[in-house]
């Protein structure tokens, strides 16, 4: 320590200190920014990967290539991680029914074991976001009010403040979020499926993600306080109702009131 303190007035000490500070900050930032991305395939056995490879060759390789290297019809899957596979296959978006502005959800084609095998195979190709653990999805630890704030700032512009979904350009759209499982919401945030941006862990922390899920699930489970929701679509649905059913009822009464007894 003495040697170090003796050199504290060395002309290069300030430079060294600055360099050290920058390295530490940068290093921490790198570590924080890639918490999710840096996870390699863990918890999958070699046979899972083997089976997943077979499923992949049979169902996915046409578009994504024999080695998942991608083709003109589908992107490379190297490094997309298990979470992306679990979301896309688990919600039925993959295998894709047809090429279009974006993959549509449809009945799920594989069982849980097969989805897990496919995830294992894709995760083995390169490090990527992993499937979230149960703890990250436990809404009993989440704060719905905080989640609501995060949701309104980051998600509502496409998914609607009431999570009823919304239109994007040229046939693309943000789907309604009711009925989507906690796991799939989380995976969507970390992998950015279709036209959705990626919300990595430095952008929205895992705790905040859990808050968002808590908010969505709480809204979904609570009874609508004001009666039928009319699709949570806002003033358009309300206006449509009053111009059709509302005025219709009124007109029926006016006709009744002015009809002559016969």
């Amino acid at each position: 320590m003495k040697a170090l303190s003796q050199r504290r007035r060395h002309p290069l000490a300030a430079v060294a200190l600055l360099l050290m500070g920058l390295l530490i900050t940068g290093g921490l930032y790198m570590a924080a920014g890639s918490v999710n991305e840096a996870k390699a395939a863990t918890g999958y056995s070699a046979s899972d990967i083997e089976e997943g490879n077979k499923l992949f060759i049979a169902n996915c390789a046409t578009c994504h290539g024999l080695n998942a290297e991608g083709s003109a019809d589908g992107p490379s899957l190297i490094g997309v991680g298990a979470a992306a596979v679990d979301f896309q296959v688990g919600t039925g978006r993959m295998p894709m029914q047809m090429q279009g502005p974006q993959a549509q959800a449809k009945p799920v084609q594989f069982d849980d074991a097969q989805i897990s095998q496919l995830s294992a195979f894709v995760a083995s190709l390169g490090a990527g976001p992993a499937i979230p653990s149960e703890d990250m999805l436990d809404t009993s630890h989440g704060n719905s009010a905080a989640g609501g704030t995060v949701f309104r700032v980051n998600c509502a512009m496409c998914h609607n403040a009431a999570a009823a979904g919304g239109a994007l350009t040229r046939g693309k759209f943000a789907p309604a979020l009711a009925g989507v499982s906690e796991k799939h919401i989380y995976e969507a945030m970390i992998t950015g499926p279709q036209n959705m941006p990626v919300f990595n862990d430095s952008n929205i922390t895992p705790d905040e993600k859990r808050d968002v899920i808590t908010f969505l699930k709480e809204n979904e489970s609570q009874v609508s306080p004001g009666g039928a929701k009319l699709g949570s679509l806002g003033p358009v649905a309300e206006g449509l109702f009053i111009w059709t059913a509302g005025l219709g009822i009124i007109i029926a009464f006016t006709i009744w009131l002015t009809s002559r007894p016969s």
Partner: protein
Amino acid sequence: MSTTTNYTPKTSTGRIAHFVDQRVGGSGIVKEFGRKIFPDHWSFMFGEVALYTFVLLLISGTFLTFFFDPSMAHVIYNGSYNPLRGIGMSAAYSSTLDISFDVRGGLFMRQVHHWSAILFVAAVSVHMLRVFFTGAFRKPRELNWVVGGVLLILAMAAGFTGYSLPDDLLSGNGLRIIDGVVKSIPLVGTYISLFLFGGEFPGTLIIPRLYSLHIMIVPAIILLMVGIHLFMVVVHKHTQYPGPGRTNDNVVGFPVGPVYAAKAGGFFFIVYGIVAAISGLLTINPVWNYGPYDPSPVSAGTQPDWYIGFVDGALRLMPGVLGNFSFEWNIPFPWGVNTLSLNVLIPALIPAGIMFTIMFAWPWIESWVTKDKREHHLLDRPRNAPFRTGMGVAGVVSYCVMWAAASSDLIATHFHVSLNDVTYWLRVLFILGPILGFVVARRIALSLQRKDREIVLHGRETGVIEMSPEGTFSERHADLDVYKLHQLVNYEDRKVIPAQPNAAGHISRSEKRRGALSKFFFEDRVAPVTPSELAALKAEHGHGPAEIEGSSTESIEK
């Protein structure tokens, strides 16, 4: 009054009534007003719906003022709605949430207020459409038509100022659009915005300011206008549809007392019941879904209430650039570059401006073109004024295209089409739709008139097929009853009036324009069946039933 002074009531109720009557003169009013006759038709009742929903708005609105705090002071919400607890928001939004969740009956009253508000504007609109399509705005009612138009604008103003009060995300987004529109006005726009919001948007002043407009100024002017409107209805007397015994000089219908008073009173409670049922069963404006206003988030599916929708739709339809031509002009001045945002200014102000100008001016436009300065107390059936019906439909179509554009995103998601395509098609429809609407509506009106002629001349088809001794088949037609006949033949026969020279023998340019418009409007027309025509045909028919359908002389002038 001499008879009333001699009258001595026997019961205590009678004594009280007599006491009041002698001092107020109620019996005189009842005698005069109670015998006022109003014609009966379902389409005459939309004005009443508007009036009753307005009363409902006053009642429910008063309830809401007891609990609403029109302040933008920052508070932390601590009420019973969990997904917002602990969140910072304005006192206005917080008190709206309290009305919804913590005031007994508050949510119901809020929903009554909002549902009756959008029903109010809808009823005013339908009432105006009825008045327009039946020609009820003609002399002497032009000014009352203008008062009605002012009431429509006031209703929209009342609605919009109320829509913004809860200070939730949805209304804040709407206010931001208004701010953008105001700022697009050249030279003064930024200053108006600055004065309106008391500084940079959103500031802390706009909610209290909108509140005093919403609960005081706008309703007071509406009440005044409603007073003038109803006074003029009483002075002019109500219009009626043509029918036997109904002339331009009388009104056929029921007296206010006891028939109409009972009907109208009952109808008030029916409207009240309908609104209450809707409010109890269906959510409107779930402010708790939207969260507190914050200028940064903009939610998908942000729309105004329906009556402002057409402005929002026009904004969505307007292209920012056409090829290389940009609608945003940056004009260099000695002091710097000023921006003229025509891409906002044009759609926000021009369509509404044109619509209201034509609407207000229409009674005078029509009487100028038709040279008709007479009083009209008998209404037109819409088919009997094909030019007006065509113009009205053109207006309705252009309004509806803008209206649809305000929900372009929902059209895209619900019908699985591209948002861009929806916009492109609506742009095409915005140009072509009104023209098509005019042509088609006028053609349909003319065809219906021809059908009416046919029915008058031939009688009603009975469905009875007769075979003559010679073996020819024909359908027997029954004569129309007098009520039906009256309705089908008794209408205003408008003809082309070519440009007339003035006293000096000169045809002015405006008279030429009038002549051209008259030709355009009335060139195609179907003349009503004249009594002589009908008599001649009847005489001809007297020969026997062997007449073949459609062989009668067509006297449709072209």
